[in-house]
C-alpha cells in the first residue's frame, strides 16, 4: 500500500508581515502559525471554506471581519489596499485575541506573493 504524505507549508504571521510590507493594527504577540490563506470580501464564503490556522485577506473593513475570524478560528486578518477598520473593530479584535494587519498591496498581489511562497488556499 502506498502512503501519500502531503507536506503543508506554513509560515508565522510575522514572516507574512515582512513579505507584504504590512503593519500591525493590533498584535497578539503570539505570532500564530499560518497554513492556509483565504482571500474574500464575502464573509459567508469565508465561513463555508476556511480551516483553522488560516489568514483572512480582505478588502472589507467591517466589524464582521473580526467576528467571522473568531467564529471560524481564523488566526489573523490582513486588510488590503491600505484600508483601515474603525477603532471599534480593532477593540473587538483585541478583546477576542485576533491579530490585525494592513498592507498597501492589493488583493491580487497579496495572494500572488503568498501563493508563490508556498502557502495554499483554504478551501
Amino acid at each position, binding site marked *: 500500500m502506498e502512503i501519500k504524505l502531503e507536506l503543508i507549508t506554513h509560515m508565522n504571521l510575522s514572516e507574512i508581515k515582512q513579505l507584504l510590507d504590512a503593519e500591525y493594527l493590533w498584535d497578539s504577540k503570539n505570532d500564530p502559525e499560518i497554513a492556509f490563506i483565504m482571500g474574500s470580501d464575502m464573509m*459567508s464564503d469565508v465561513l463555508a471554506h476556511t480551516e483553522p490556522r488560516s489568514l483572512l485577506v480582505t478588502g472589507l473593513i467591517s466589524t464582521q471581519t473580526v467576528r467571522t475570524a473568531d467564529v471560524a478560528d481564523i488566526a489573523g486578518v490582513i486588510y488590503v489596499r491600505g484600508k483601515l477598520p474603525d477603532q471599534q473593530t480593532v477593540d473587538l479584535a483585541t478583546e477576542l485575541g485576533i491579530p490585525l494587519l494592513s498592507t498597501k498591496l492589493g488583493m491580487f498581489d497579496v495572494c500572488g506573493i503568498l501563493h508563490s511562497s508556498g502557502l495554499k488556499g483554504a478551501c
Partner: protein
Amino acid sequence: MGEALYQKEFIVSGGDFDRAGEVSTAIKSILKSAGISNPIIRRVAIASYETEMNVVIHAYNGKIDLILTPDSVIIECTDVGPGIENIDLAMQEGYSTASDEMRELGFGAGMGLPNIKRSSDNFEIDSEINKGTHVKITIHHTTA
C-alpha cells in the same frame, strides 16, 4: 437526545449590525467552559453566527436558544419577520435576497442557510410569510 444540561436564551435585534455576532461569541465561550471540543464548537459557532446574521439582516427581532444535552448542542432560533417565500430557493448556494447595504458589510453571498445545513447533523426550517422563520440546528458532540 436526553434532557437539557444547560439552556440559555439570547435576544437578537433586527438591523443591529454593531452587535451582530455577540450571541455566537457568547455561545462559543459557554461551550468552551462546558468542555466541548474545538471542532464541534467551531461548527456550532458557524451555524449560530449565520443564524444570528439572518435575523439581523432579514428579521425585525428574534430569539436564539442554546440547549446543551448529554449528546448534542441544539441552536433554536425563532424570529419575527417577513418569512421566507421559497425555502428550496433560499437553500440554494448563491441565492440571496439581501440588499446592497448588507453586501457592503460582507453578507448576502447566498451561503447562509447552506452553511448552517453543512455545519449541522440535523437541520429543520419552517417559515410563514409576514410572520417569521424558525430553525432548529442539532450538532452531536459525542460519537456514542
